């Protein structure tokens, strides 16, 4: 049994890995600055939540700042990670029409979608500056730090999204949304 088991595992992993881990058995890693930042942020966040758990159970005295900082960290991850999602053009959307439309119409639709995306993300980036500016007065609940730090991180994420969307828009516009129309339905899968 154990022999068959390990053979199964090798075969299973060869088939199973692509969908979950990578597109190839050989893990291909592309390097982008926002990826490194998000990676560091994510594990810092994991450490802080772990710290909260540890201080509450082992030391019987939960560190009050951990909960608050963890919440802000999640906000940063959302918006900076948003940059990664935009770069990969993997935002979750209802893609029925794109699926069933004939290719040339799908390309027009994709162009429209890209323009709306670009416009809205640009507005978000603009709003983020306004908010960061206005939040200078307010401080966090537990720690005496300005809320501008929190919104500064979000603003940074918004600008990463904007930069990546401009890049994608430029690349797509140059080939007339041809490649984009071939990869419809390759977005993030969550359910």
């Amino acid at each position, binding site marked *: *049994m154990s022999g068959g*088991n390990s053979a*199964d*595992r090798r*075969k*299973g992993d060869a*088939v*199973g*890995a692509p*969908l*979950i*881990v*990578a597109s190839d058995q050989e*893990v291909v*890693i592309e390097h982008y600055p926002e990826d490194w930042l*998000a*990676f560091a942020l*994510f594990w810092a*966040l*994991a450490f802080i*939540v*772990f710290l909260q758990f540890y201080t509450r159970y082992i030391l019987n005295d939960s560190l009050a700042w951990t*909960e608050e900082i963890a*919440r802000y960290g*999640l*906000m940063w*991850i*959302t*918006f900076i*990670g*948003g940059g*990664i*999602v935009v770069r990969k053009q*993997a*935002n*979750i*959307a*209802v893609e*029925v*029409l*794109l*699926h069933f439309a004939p290719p040339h119409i799908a390309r027009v639709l994709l162009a429209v*979608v890209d323009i*709306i*995306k670009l416009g*809205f*993300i640009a*507005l*978000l980036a603009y*709003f*983020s500056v*306004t*908010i960061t500016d*206005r939040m200078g007065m307010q401080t966090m609940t537990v720690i005496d730090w300005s809320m501008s730090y929190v*919104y500064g991180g*979000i603003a940074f994420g918004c600008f990463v999204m904007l930069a990546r969307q401009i890049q994608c828009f430029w690349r797509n516009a140059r080939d007339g949304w041809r490649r984009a129309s071939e990869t419809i339905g390759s977005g*993030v*899968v*969550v*359910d």
Partner: protein
Amino acid sequence: MTALFVAFFVLLAVGVPIFIALGVSSLVYTHFVAGIPDFVVLHRMAGGVDSFPLLAVPFFILAGNLMNSAGITNRIFAFATAAVGWLRGGLGHVNVVGSVIFAGMSGTAVADAGGLGTIEIKAMRDHGYPADFSVGITAASSTIGPIIPPSLPMVVFGVMANASIGQLFAAGFVPGLLMALSLMIYTTWYARRHGIGSDQAFRWRVLGHSLIAAVPALLTPAIIIGGMTFGWFTPTEAAIAACVWALILGALLYRTLTFRHFYKITLDTIETTAAVLLIVGAASLFGWVLTTTQVTEKFSVLLLSITDNPLLILLIINVLLLVVGCFMETIAAISILVPVLMPVVLKVGIDPVQFGVIMVLNLMIGLLTPPVGMVLFILSRVANMPFDRTVRAVSPFLIPLLIVLLLISVIPELTLAVPKYFYR
């Protein structure tokens, strides 16, 4: 007001990312109707993500991803084979039992379909099972994943509906097992009709060996579910504990996890988290717009003018959800619809916890229906089967799942008994 809805549905239909469709139509409201400063849009979006329970989202996604890469799925499969492979329709049952165990560690259906499902379909093909049956049972059993805790959709439901995530998790138990039972009954019936026997004689020795090999993996659901029901962990902490355990298994015990894998898995997790939470944030912005413009109020008046019988209301909502589930991703549907549906549900006295399980199960069925069914997409790729044939292969399996949906809609005790026992 109509402008808001027209904008929203047109944007959605054209294929604009959901969070942007929500954001743009909310912006139409703040700018043209309400005259509120526009930056409120971003402020509300960010505020929608500012929640401690939502932290469970990234870590449950990470735990599922780590489990799939740590060679754990194969051990679960081997154990399930030894345990129920001797039944008539052997691997069909193995498929269901494996999914139930995996459901205790992963919070999504696609993690199940893509990880365990791949092994299951291959094994069933090697043993000569009809391809349609293999794909159908794999698809149907993968939907148990988010019903049995932990569950990503239920975390999002709990945050949006302001319901206890711990209670929602506990409430998913019985329905999840009912789903498994109904699918196993179907499998037995199918096996009798098509003369499929068992795959492996039952032997205590084999069961014992596979159990010992699977113990570290089986500890994961024990840690998560046990820790939460006995009140040691909050859902977020349970998610962290699951990640730590999966890391120990993958990096130290099974040694299947390299740093490159680890980096890749983390980034995949971040990507999924961001894609989901952007929608959750934008949906809470949109929900705020719907509430201040009293759209939710009007909707509940409209629905209550048809009937105020809780069962009929649930029936209507179920039909609505089944339709939405055909087109929209689960978590997006939950975060958009909860603000709209919750007032009615509370007004007719339906327990939010029961409603949460109904909603998630209903949307899970949506994963198995065209035109947009994520599990269908994944399995048609895994099994190398044309999409329309996959749809037909899966369709008979909707019947047992719909029966369970009906049961939990009609009998509240099926969902509420367990949380009532643990959270008095």
